[in-house]
């Protein structure tokens, strides 16, 4: 079992699992329960400026995309930032930090884009003894209509400006939470760094319309026959989050920036993937909102055992290990060749591999042999696309075999393992640099 204690931009926590700024961290009651369950830290649900509290809808604020057995695959919400008075939140934050000194307690903030508003709230947060602040430049619904949240995160100049104010008026570490609702995530990340951010966290939720009620002709969640777009999260967004996290991790202009990864982290495996792609810790919300806080047990145990199995003694040693594997398409080895292969002992003869290949791909899996159901790869046609492996319901029945020093029956070419060729140097590429 490896050590999970982490120090993220100087903020220590017993494990790298923080609860993201969201309903689970809206008040002391929930946060105390989370810490009792074993969570390493929380980002307290976003505080706004002092004044009349935020008003939330009293109709449904969540909706979900369900998978088999009604498992929650995707989730969206139209909830705003905290709707409790600022002073109440600040008092609870101070008390919780006092009660749980070993846990990370970061406070999420979202106030209007004026220097005075940020200056004022930062001072009051600093008084609570919190470990840091996270700037909510991400929420895509509701608050963005009022010029906050994603409305700031989508303009790199604003990101830089507000980040700079926060560094100027507070000694607390500053994490900038980014919105994925942009074309190139590196732009706001670079802006945050320019403004002096200590770290970035991503992704916030994705603008989404969850579904449409087919009987009432109204989008969902429906508030008195009307609906609005919400923020999408949960397991379904993980691939998007992985891409954005790795884009920042790979960006020379962002080199070394600490990343707190968010987006569909449901278990230790998801967390490990984000860490390998450059995250220093992870934040979780949807998984807790669908199963409760107890999921932390599996996360902690699983990640610790995984690190030990990989002979990594700490989370820090794992951070970014998979980043070098990511490159641009043009740098992939076009000489690398695989063929699908079917383990006939495991094959249950459902024929899914055959029909998807036959109908939608390369006609590379035959369906019959001597008049009987029998599925076999036709290597002369197989391009190694992985579609059959993807649809095969039996684990390890269909796999890909790498050709090494043998002839590719499809192209007739001898595949030599030591010969690698990238598009940049490929003879078919008119732009190829001869010596690339």
């Amino acid at each position, binding site marked *: 079992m490896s050590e999970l204690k982490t120090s993220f931009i100087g903020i220590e926590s017993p494990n790298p699992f923080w609860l993201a700024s969201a309903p689970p961290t809206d008040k002391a009651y929930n946060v105390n329960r989370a810490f009792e369950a074993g969570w390493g830290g929380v980002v307290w649900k976003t505080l706004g400026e002092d004044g009349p509290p935020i008003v939330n809808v009293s109709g449904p604020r969540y909706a979900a995309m369900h998978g*088999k057995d009604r498992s929650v695959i995707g989730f969206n919400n139209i909830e705003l930032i905290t709707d409790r008075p600022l002073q109440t939140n600040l008092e609870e934050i101070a008390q919780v930090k006092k009660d749980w000194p070993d846990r990370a307690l970061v406070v999420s903030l979202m106030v209007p884009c004026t220097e005075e508003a940020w200056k004022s709230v930062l001072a009051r947060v600093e008084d609570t003894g919190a470990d840091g602040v996270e700037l909510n430049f991400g929420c895509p619904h509701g608050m963005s209509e009022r010029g906050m949240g994603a409305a700031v995160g989508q303009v790199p100049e604003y990101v830089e400006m507000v980040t700079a104010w926060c560094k100027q008026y507070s000694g607390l570490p500053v994490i900038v939470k980014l919105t994925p609702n942009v074309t190139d995530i590196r732009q706001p990340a670079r802006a945050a760094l320019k403004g002096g951010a200590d770290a970035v966290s991503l992704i916030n939720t994705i603008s989404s319309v969850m579904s449409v009620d087919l009987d009432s002709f109204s989008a969902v969640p429906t508030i008195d026959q009307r609906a609005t777009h919400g923020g999408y999260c949960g397991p379904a967004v993980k691939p998007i989050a992985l891409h954005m996290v790795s884009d920042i991790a790979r960006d020379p202009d962002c080199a070394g920036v600490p990343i707190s990864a968010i987006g569909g982290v449901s278990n230790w495996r998801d967390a490990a993937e984000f860490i390998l792609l450059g995250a220093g810790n992870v934040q979780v919300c949807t998984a807790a909102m669908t199963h409760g806080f107890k999921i932390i047990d599996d996360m902690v145990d699983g990640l610790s055992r995984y690190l030990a199995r990989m002979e990594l003694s700490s989370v820090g040693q794992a951070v970014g290990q998979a980043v070098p594997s990511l490159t641009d398409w043009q740098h992939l080895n076009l000489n690398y060749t695989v063929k699908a292969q079917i383990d006939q002992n495991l094959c249950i003869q*459902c024929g899914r591999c055959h029909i998807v290949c036959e109908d939608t791909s390369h006609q590379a899996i035959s369906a019959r042999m001597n008049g009987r159901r029998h599925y076999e790869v036709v290597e002369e046609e197989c391009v190694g696309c992985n579609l059959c492996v993807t649809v095969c319901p039996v684990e390890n029945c269909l796999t890909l075999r790498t050709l090494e020093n043998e002839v590719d029956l499809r192209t007739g070419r001898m595949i030599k393992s030591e010969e690698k060729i990238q598009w940049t140097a490929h003879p078919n590429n008119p732009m190829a640099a001869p010596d690339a």
Partner: protein
Amino acid sequence: MELIATAHNGPAGIAAARLGEEDCRHNFCEMHSPLEANGARVEAERCYFCFDAPCLEACPTGIDVPGFIRMIANHNPAGAAGLILQENIMGGTCARACPVETLCEHACVRNQDDDRPVTIGLLQRYAVDQALDQDVNYFSRASDSGRSVGVVGAGPAGLACAHRLAVMGHSVVVYEAREKTGGLNEYGLAAYKMLNDFAQRESRFITSVGGIEIAHGKTFGHDFSLADLRDRHDGVFLGLGLGGGNTLGIPGETSAGVEDAVDFIDRLRQATRLSSIPVGKRVVVIGGGMTAIDVAVQAKLLGAEDVTLVYRRGPEQMKASAKEQDFARIRGVTIRFWAQPESVVHQDGSVTGVEFHVTGGPDGQRRPPNFVLDADMVFKAIGQAPQPLAEALAGFKRERGRLVVDANRLTSQAGVWAGGDCIAGGDDLTVSAVQDGKLAANAIHETLSAGGTD
């Protein structure tokens, strides 16, 4: 389900009301709880939507099983029922009575990967029940062809044939000896498989398409002849079923208390009060098919104290599947293999037991000594015989009494088709009878359309 205790219920001999009516109703509950909407979708998601699916090949009526299951998964049970009924108008009964563990579910590839097939039967029932509940209309008749077909027997074969012919625009008269429509669906399947008068419900659905007249109380060879049918109609379909039970051919067989299982089930199915059906305290069932299981289980559910099913060969040879054997055992039936009845033991004209010899020798030969099972009621469940039809069918080519038909279910006589239990080579299943009726209807339609057979 928990069975109401069945030990020491009432006197020796044959008696009614061994259990109260309420307890009987409790015991005759659903064999499998029907699926509700979400449960059905979850189960439907287990289907791999196989290419050239083995379950489809295994279904005698060729229902597009993956197709209908996918519709259930996608919240379209009405569409699913449409696919089912298109191939099998008795999809509702088959979902309840088919030995799926030897047909579609046996073929399911999920037996290979997680040892549990998709529960195709329950899914089919879910879809069809939904459709019947919601009165979905699937069939409309083609314009009147002006041709008429006479169908003998309102059982699965006859009704399936009549329905398809009616859809294709022909007028159909179904001649039925008994008071009710449905044949063995109404009179022969176990009561716990066909709860809530399902056979009648399904019959009404089938005939609601129009163009089908059912003439009850008309017995073939008694009230009308083949010549009459040929006179009145342009084509004839015989879905006669079989006439009566086989005999054991052993001494004492005619003693009081020895009864054919089919007759007992018939009485039970028509009883308003289950508890009014007299049943023995100690019951012996002879046979190895589904009827043997059905009668043994029902005797037990009525409160018989001791029910033993005796089969002359082993569990693998038994026509009732291992699942059905287990089903009977769970309900308290004892199954004994490798024993054949030698004589019915009786006293004062009433049965007191059955003497068996053991058959389990290497070549199936008997192995002494014999043994006797005490019994006050004995059921013969050794298949039905075509003998009573011999006279009426004298002019047809037959095989062991049953009608010989071709692939289109045409008999040896032009213009006369046949299907269901009365034809040779069948397997005594509702689903096969439906397929016979369907194939014959297609062939009749083709013949009539070409101007043939008047």
